[in-house]
C-alpha cells in the first residue's frame, strides 16, 4: 500500500484509536498512516458508488480532510475507528453521487472483481471481502438487494420503494431485518478483528 519508510515506521505499531488521537492533535504523519491503512478500501468504496475515478478521488480526498478536521469528535465516541472512517467515506461518496445525479443502475458489476483478487491486493482485504460476500449470500434475496442498493447505490428508502414497486414500510422492514442479520452473520464469522490482524 505504498507505505513509506522513515519516521512513520513507528506509526505502524499504533492502533487506529491511537492514530486518531494523534490526528486530533494535528499529527499529519498519523493521518498518513491512516491513509495507508484505509485509503485503498476508501477508494474502492468510492469508486463502486461513483463509478468515476476522478469523482472517487475527490470523495476520498474530502473524506480524509474531514477525518483530519474532526478526529477530535471521534474521541469519546463508542464507535469503532474503522466504522467511523468508512462512514465518513461512504457519506462523502453518497453525497457526491446524489449531487451529481449519477444514476446508479447496476451497482454490482461496475468495478470488475478479478477472480481471486488482484495480485497486489493485500490478503487481509481479500479475506474480509470474502467474509462479507459469504454473509451477504446467506441473506434472503430481497434483503440483500435492499442493502446493496442503499449502500452502494446511494438510494434512499423512498427511492427504493419506488424503484422496486414496494410499499415504503416493506423496504424499511427489509433493510432492518437484512442489516441485523448481516451483523449477526458477520459476528459469527469473526469479522470483528481489526483489518491489520486478520
Amino acid at each position, binding site marked *: 500500500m*505504498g507505505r513509506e519508510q522513515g519516521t512513520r515506521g513507528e506509526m505502524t505499531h499504533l492502533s487506529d484509536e491511537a492514530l486518531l488521537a494523534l490526528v486530533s*492533535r*494535528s499529527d*499529519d504523519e498519523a*493521518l*498518513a498512516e491512516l*491513509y495507508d491503512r484505509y*485509503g485503498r*478500501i*476508501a*477508494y*474502492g*468504496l468510492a*469508486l463502486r458508488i461513483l463509478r468515476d475515478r476522478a469523482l*472517487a*478521488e475527490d470523495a*476520498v*480526498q*474530502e473524506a480524509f*480532510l*474531514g477525518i*483530519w*478536521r*474532526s478526529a*477530535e*469528535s471521534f474521541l469519546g*465516541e*463508542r*464507535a*469503532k475507528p474503522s*466504522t467511523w472512517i468508512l462512514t465518513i467515506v*461512504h*457519506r462523502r461518496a*453518497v453525497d457526491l453521487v*446524489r449531487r451529481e445525479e449519477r444514476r446508479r443502475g447496476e451497482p454490482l458489476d461496475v468495478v*470488475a*472483481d478479478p477472480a481471486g483478487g*488482484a495480485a497486489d491486493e493485500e490478503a487481509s*482485504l481479500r479475506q*474480509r*471481502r470474502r*467474509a*462479507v460476500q459469504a454473509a451477504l449470500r446467506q441473506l434472503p434475496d430481497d434483503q440483500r438487494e435492499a*442493502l*446493496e442498493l*442503499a*449502500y*452502494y447505490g446511494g438510494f*434512499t*428508502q423512498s427511492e427504493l420503494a419506488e424503484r422496486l414497486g414496494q410499499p415504503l414500510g416493506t423496504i424499511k422492514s427489509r*433493510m*432492518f431485518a*437484512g*442489516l*441485523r442479520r*448481516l*451483523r449477526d452473520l*458477520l459476528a459469527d464469522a469473526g*469479522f*470483528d478483528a481489526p483489518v491489520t490482524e486478520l
Partner: protein
Amino acid sequence: MTNDLHELTAGYALDALEEDERRAFEEHLASCAVCEGELPSLHDAAAALAHDVYAPAPPAELRDRVLRQVHRERTNVVRLRPRWQWPVAGVAAVAAGAAIGFGIWAFSESSSLDRERAARRADAKALAIVAAPGSIRFPLYGATGALVVARSGQAALVVSGLRPAPEGKTYEVWVVRGGPPQPAGIFPGGSGRLVVALKRVVPHGARVAVSIEKAGGSEKLTGSMLFGAQTA
C-alpha cells in the same frame, strides 16, 4: 410508532433516510435507549459492506494530494487544546455533546438540498459574508462547521447538528482577543445547518467561541466554551 422509528436505525446506519425522516430519527435517538444501543452495531455492519468491494490501488498522487492539503491546513490553523475540549459534565455537555455525536457527524457535510434550506433560513448578511470573495474559512473545534471571516473582519458562523438550546437558555457567540470575551450575538441552535452573522468584527488572530447562556444572552461569559475557532 416507536417500532417504526426503531426500524429506521438500519436506514440511518446506511445513510438511506430522506432528510425529514433523518431529523425525526435523530430526535427520537436522543431519548431512546433501545435505538441508541443498537445503532453502533448496525453502523459496524453497514461499514463492513465497504469490504465487499474489489479495491484497486488508488493512484499514488492521491496520497500526495491528501497529505499536501492536510499540511496546508496544519500550517495555517492553530488548533485549540486542551482547554477547548468538551466539558465533561453539566447542562452544556448534555445539550451540545449529545447532538454532535457519531451519527450526526456522519451527516454533517450536508446535501445540496440541505444547503438550499439553510440558505433560506440564513439571513442575507451572513450569506454575503460566506460568499464574499477572499473570505477565509476556519474549521470549528468541538462542533461541525466553520467560522467564515470576510476581509472586512465581518464574520459568520456555519454550524451543523446543533441541538436547540435548553429551555430558558441560548447559544451565545464570543470574540476573544487579549481581554475578556466580547459578546457577538445569540442564536437558538436547532437541527440542520445554521448560518449566524456575528455582531462584532473578528480581528486577525482572534478566537471565536460559543457558550450557552441565559435566554436573551449575557454581557459576560458565564458558561463553558463549547466550541469555536481560532483565526490564524
